[in-house]
């Protein structure tokens, strides 16, 4: 009976306002493991409801904080979930549970796990063991960029995990990883990998009409485009990047009314200017090569 009541309440909460959901995040997190075990028994509905709730929460959080970094206090899941996550990501854990925690990973309060660096290693290892789907790819990339945004966590990302970027999953309009993923520190980290495919995939993922790139990251990108994508052998990479910028600029030209939920009028104006600059840089590099 309590289960029925909880299930019903969670479903109605999907439509609730951000504060209402946020106030109940501890109860929802406490219910989370139960939903996991039910999934192991073949019942997906509870976990699906929770994921819907996460999605609703993230969308609303994003609306409230558009253009601003999210504080830890606004992260959805309760940091107390850490020990369970570590358990579920253990090597012996069955694949369906690993799959579930990977799907949930964009909603975990990674910044609160700074004392548990092993969790990131486990997460990276678990991701490599679950069958690939676009949802899995999207969740891994989203979480990866969130983890990378924390300077104390970033060095603990397993090197192989970055290659998930090359899968280029389609990211949703509201994506915290992409929102946070264009900082100078992350641009440098990806560049330091020395893999042009990963680097290009990263840019293709974070250049989006839904998120305004961080200013500090743009300066770094300017240098990056010139230094990494110059040269005759880089022509098709530049074409891929130009196609992406053209697509993003085309979408921005439609105006903010076509980008819901997304940037407001002023943000669209700034984004057009910034993406336009990046496009000019690429054309400039391309022109230098041609000459």
């Amino acid at each position: 009976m309590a289960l029925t009541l909880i299930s019903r309440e969670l479903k109605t909460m999907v439509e609730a306002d951000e504060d209402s959901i946020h106030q109940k995040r501890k109860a929802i997190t406490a219910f989370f493991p139960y939903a996991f075990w039910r999934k192991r028994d073949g019942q997906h509905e509870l976990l699906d409801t929770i994921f819907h709730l996460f999605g609703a929460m993230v969308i609303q959080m994003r609306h409230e904080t558009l253009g601003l970094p999210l504080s830890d206090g606004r992260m959805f899941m309760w940091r107390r979930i850490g020990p369970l996550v570590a358990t579920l990501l253990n090597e012996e854990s069955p694949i369906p549970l690993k799959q579930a925690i990977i799907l949930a990973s964009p909603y975990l309060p990674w910044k609160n796990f700074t004392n548990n660096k092993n969790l990131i290693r486990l997460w990276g290892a678990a991701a490599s063991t679950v069958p690939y789907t676009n949802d899995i790819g999207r969740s891994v990339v989203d979480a990866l960029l969130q983890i990378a945004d924390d300077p104390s966590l970033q060095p603990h990302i397993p090197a192989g995990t970055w290659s998930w970027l090359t899968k280029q999953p389609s990211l949703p309009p509201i994506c915290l990883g992409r929102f946070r993923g264009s900082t100078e520190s992350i641009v440098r980290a990806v560049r330091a990998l020395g893999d042009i495919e990963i680097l290009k995939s990263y840019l293709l993922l974070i250049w989006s009409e839904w998120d305004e790139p961080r200013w500090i990251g743009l300066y770094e990108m300017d240098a990056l485009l010139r230094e990494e994508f110059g040269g005759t052998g880089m022509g098709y990479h530049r074409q891929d990047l130009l196609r992406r910028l053209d697509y993003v600029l085309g979408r921005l030209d439609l105006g903010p009314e076509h980008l819901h939920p997304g940037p407001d009028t002023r943000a669209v104006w700034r984004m057009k200017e910034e993406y336009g600059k990046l496009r000019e840089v690429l054309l400039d590099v391309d022109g230098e090569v041609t000459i």
Partner: protein
Amino acid sequence: MISEQLEQMNADTFATQLKHEPITILLLSVTRTETTDQSRRLRDTRHQLLDLWDQIHLTDPTPAVICVDALLGCIKVNDDRVMVRPGSERVAGAASVCLLRILSGVGPGSGVVGGTRRRYTGVIPCRVDFEGPFRYSMIAFHALLIDSRERWPFEWMDYEPCAQEYASFANTLVQVAYNRRRYGKVPRWVLRFSLHSLSQDPPPPDSVVADCLSIIAIDLGCDVSSVKSVALDERCVDT
């Protein structure tokens, strides 16, 4: 000290004086039972407590004061650690379990809590840890008595009671959740208990799972009157 009085007093006299037989007899029984083996005595105490657990329904502040006095008489605080004096384990255990039972049944603003808190917080500081076999009962009533604005972190990681004790404890926390929710929020340490318990693999006994779900339902604001009639033991949700 109450614990010494308990040793000396006649059970009938004490019960009459305090006007509450179950708790008095309980406290007396655990102090007077003579067995040679310490662990067996503690186990017997647990069983006695669990047998009596369901009979204790208290709103009169007197038993709470008796319990807290009994408890304070048999513990010592050293470097923010609360330790039970050797030989007083059973009294401390009985008092702490009964105290938790009493406090779980009342709201935070009740006279029972107020009177007990004044006595308790005069001796026990906010940030302490507890040792001994009844550690988690002590932790629970400590959390109910200290200022709710004080964050007092503790973990349930090592909480691995026997099934019977687990069930009783979870059942009591449903009552805590219900009574606290009526006046505000379910304490986060109660929700942490649910998170910890539901995270176990294999899961805890069914009744514990049901109680943990009830705690969550209560915090979510579900209509607990319907929870009461089906999923919860009626004694837990005293509407």
